[in-house]
């Protein structure tokens, strides 16, 4: 396994730059100042760690978590239990077993033990939470927060219950906090561009599309969830050893919201954004709270008004969200502002012509008696079809005839009620879409589904990285560029996918599907919304896919001309049933087809 799948050199550079940006001012303050500023900076570093930790999960998965303070609470609780002096431990936690009571660990060892324990707990919880999507996932994390808080309170004797844990050693100061914060930032930044980070971001952008290139989204979420929980536990431990006193209620809603505010203001999907958010919110509080103490403006006296900080902060958050919903930095990282860190991708000449991919081995995709019923409604009724490699099969039918449902039954997004689908001798029914994709079926979607906020290159790389778990980063990039080149969009590699023109997006979607090295491809209305030249363009690509790559294509489209021109065979569905299958000419002559499209009387008239 290549190290560069996890440690991407460009991300490492970005991480180092980001760490320097954080470290230098903090060190300067550490050397030059004493007093409250030191406490403020230490607190900032602890919060920064917590924000970066949350970002590993929330930023990459797109699921906001309210539950990470639970991991902080556990981190604080466990690490403090390990570092408190044995004499004190006996009175604070009388029920703990002797080997814990009698031993005392240093900060580093305590952190390691804490992070491993919390990581294990997070893994177990994550098995359930990571299967959920969107807001149901967020709400379940809220439940996690409440449950963990109640458990800590209830475990009095092992914990201090609702009471403050005190006597924690002050092991966190600016240097130690800085070291740990930098660790969190670096891990977060490296994770973002690593293979699991890339796959997860693809899932964040579009789960259905991610599955269509074989990405098991819940599994990728679980990885990020565990990493992020471990870092959160570290942040919690830092907080405990910085404040030296804490109680369960401290790791609850207020802290949750303080962390989320920093993350949302800075930009949830960016590590640089996490840093920016933490810096900005801390700086604002520091400025605002000085106004709160009242001041003499020369011409007038402003009295002391409590609450200025909260009000000002809330206003700024509202304004930020109103003006920039993605947060100040959106998806940008530090290299987007620092040209020296940026590496030119795309457009660069690639050595030689891309190695021609060997054509897919011959075979067939067979649909056998597939039925899909929703209650009494039979959407697809006992359909039999065979698609061979190197052939284009058209699937047509009036609206509501079951075309998309049948496509879903093949791709694994719908489970057939009866019948089976197989590739050669391998049955693929009953598998989730990402497994079907891995078995050799690529697809494009009716309404193009790209990983919108990733670059064109990353779109293809995500699919490639899924397919080949261990190829080195450089090869991954060059293979992705080759694929883009084959679809004549190599010069767009560095562009964000969402900013591409419609035809380019369709090409990118096909390039991404090809990264799977599929033998068959399902295309749902690939020409929908295209003008004539774009359509012609597409026809060229599709013909190339069949001729050069030897793929078998199943195309659903309403554009009769396109279907007639392109397909060797056409299957016609009506009310879920296959009513005709044959060459374009045969199908055109078929009275049942005419009837389905035009109605019985029209059809009879035309035959007469």
């Amino acid at each position, binding site marked *: 396994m290549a190290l560069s799948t996890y440690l991407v050199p460009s991300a490492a550079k970005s991480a180092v730059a980001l760490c320097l940006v954080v470290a230098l001012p903090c060190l300067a303050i550490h050397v030059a100042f004493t*007093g*409250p500023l*030191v*406490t*403020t900076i230490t*607190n900032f570093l*602890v919060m920064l760690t917590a924000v970066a930790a949350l970002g590993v999960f929330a930023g990459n998965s797109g699921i906001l978590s309210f539950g990470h303070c639970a991991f902080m609470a556990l981190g604080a609780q466990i690490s403090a239990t390990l570092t408190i002096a044995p004499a004190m431990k006996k009175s604070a936690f009388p029920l703990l077993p002797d080997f814990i009571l009698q031993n005392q660990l240093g900060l580093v060892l305590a952190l390691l033990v804490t992070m491993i324990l919390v990581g294990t707990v997070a893994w177990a919880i994550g098995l359930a939470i990571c299967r959920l999507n969107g807001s149901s996932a967020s709400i379940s994390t809220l439940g996690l927060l409440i449950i963990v808080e109640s458990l800590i*309170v*209830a475990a*009095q004797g092992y914990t201090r*219950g*609702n*009471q*403050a844990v*005190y*006597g924690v050693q002050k092991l966190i100061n600016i240097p130690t906090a800085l070291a740990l914060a930098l660790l969190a930032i670096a891990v977060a930044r490296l994770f973002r561009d690593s293979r699991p980070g890339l796959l997860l971001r693809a899932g964040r952008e579009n789960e259905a599309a991610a599955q269509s290139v074989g990405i098991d989204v819940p599994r990728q979420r679980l990885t990020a969830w565990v990493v992020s929980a471990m870092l959160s536990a570290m942040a919690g431990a830092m*907080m405990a050893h*910085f*404040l*030296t*006193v*804490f*109680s369960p209620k*401290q790791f609850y809603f*207020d802290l949750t919201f303080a962390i989320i505010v920093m993350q949302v203001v800075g930009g949830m999907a960016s590590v640089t954004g996490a840093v920016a958010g933490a810096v900005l919110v801390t700086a604002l509080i520091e400025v605002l*709270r*000085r*106004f*709160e*103490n009242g*001041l*003499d*403006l*020369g011409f007038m006296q402003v009295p*002391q008004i*409590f*609450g200025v*900080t*909260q009000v000002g902060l809330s206003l700024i958050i509202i304004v930020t969200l109103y003006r920039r919903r993605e947060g100040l930095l959106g998806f940008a990282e530090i290299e987007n502002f620092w040209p020296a860190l940026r590496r030119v991708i795309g457009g660069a000449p690639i050595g030689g012509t891309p190695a021609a991919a060997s054509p897919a081995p011959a075979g067939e995709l067979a649909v056998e008696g597939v039925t899909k019923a929703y209650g009494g409604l039979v959407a697809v009724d006992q359909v039999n079809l065979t698609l061979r490699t190197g052939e284009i099969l058209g699937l047509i039918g009036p609206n509501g005839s079951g075309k998309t449902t049948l496509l879903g039954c093949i791709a694994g997004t719908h489970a057939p009620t009866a019948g089976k689908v197989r590739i050669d001798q391998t049955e693929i029914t009953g598998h989730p879409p990402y497994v079907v994709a891995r078995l050799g079926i690529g697809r494009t979607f009716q309404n193009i589904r790209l990983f919108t906020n990733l670059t064109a290159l990353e779109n293809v790389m995500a699919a490639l990285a899924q397919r080949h778990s261990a190829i080195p980063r450089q090869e991954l990039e060059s293979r992705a560029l080759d694929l883009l080149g084959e679809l004549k969009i190599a010069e767009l590699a560095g562009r964000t996918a969402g900013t591409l023109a419609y035809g380019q997006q369709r090409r990118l979607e096909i390039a991404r599907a090809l990264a799977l090295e599929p033998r068959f491809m399902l295309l749902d209305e690939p020409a929908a919304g295209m003008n004539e030249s774009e359509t012609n363009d597409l026809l060229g690509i599709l013909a190339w896919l069949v001729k050069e790559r030897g793929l078998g294509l199943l195309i659903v489209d309403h554009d009769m001309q396109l279907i007639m021109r392109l397909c060797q065979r056409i299957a016609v569905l009506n009310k879920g049933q296959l009513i005709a299958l044959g060459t374009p000419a045969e199908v055109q002559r078929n009275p049942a087809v005419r009837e389905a499209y035009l109605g019985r009387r029209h059809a009879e008239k035309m035959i007469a």
Partner: protein
Amino acid sequence: MSRFLKIGVSLAALAISTATGALADDVLKIGFAGGFTGYLAPYDQPTLQGIELAVDEINNAGGIDGKLKIEVITRDMRSEIAQSAVMAQELIDQGINVMLAPCDVDPAVAAGQIAQGAGIPTIAPCASTPTLPGIVGDYMFANYTADNLQGTALADFAIQQGYKNALILISKDTPYTEKLPGYFAKVFEAKGGKLADAVEFKMGQQDFSAEVTKIKQLNPAPDVIMTAAYEPDFPAFIKQLRSAGIATPVLGSDGIDSPTTLALGEIAEGVVFANAGFPSAGSPLAKFNDAFKAHFGQESSTVYTATGYDVIKIVEAAVKATGGKTDGASLREAIDNLENVPVATGTITYKGMNRVPLRVVALNRIVGGQKTHVADVTPNGADVPPAE
């Protein structure tokens, strides 16, 4: 003039005002890192009013002993522990002689530890957890009626009423709702009473039918129920208790010293509860309330104004005891040895109390929707159970 220039001017003015702030000498500086916003605001804001009143009175009379004026510097720690430490450090950098900590134990510890390190005495005006001074160290003092003191006063009253069999209603959600009845039970049992049961509730649960049924089924029935539940739990509990036909007397803590309890009407009739003082005619608390109204133009809304006032009286007494010395060590020593200092809520003694003051606990009975005075109790220091 651009708005940036305006902001620049304000910032410059700000810098100058903070820089010159520390110049004046010959005053006693008291720093209060309070939670003036956030969940502590209902406690720390009234405390600050009481402090203001006491400082005004003393300064108008020429200062402590007629010469040393008091300056109060406040910082809002926004009810956050980390900010409590930041503000404490900021106050110490301003050269304060005495620190006042926020009203909750965790942030009070954070502020107290900073002051402990700097050798500056800290008083927590209204945190009631008796372990607080022990956690921080010898420079940390409590001021408010500690939970174990209050529990003892209520237990003494219960014994004196001849109750034999007590039930406590507790919630493990906060130390206050759990430990205070615990202290009560300890003293009650030590003095020959019997604990019938400890029934548990969850704060904010609304429905007390399970607890009430449990109490109803007890045999023998308890002859008194003691709880430290407060709003919204206490009103819900007592409504359901009384409507189940249970007429057992109920003892409560200072958490129910609020207009809501009085507004319960017939249901709350006869409930006895403890607090920091009762303003009977001619008492110091009545005098304080009058002075408060004269100063602020409104009635004092809670007893925390009076206990805030008390803190300044303690500092005044300590400075007098040192003969005008204001260094941390001398003040610490002086506070630790104070005895019978007259304050708004009665008297306060620190000597021999491990920095948790012995003070009057007032017992009140609700009669016809009004608080009536039952007794002022100063428990025997030896009866008070150790803080846990």
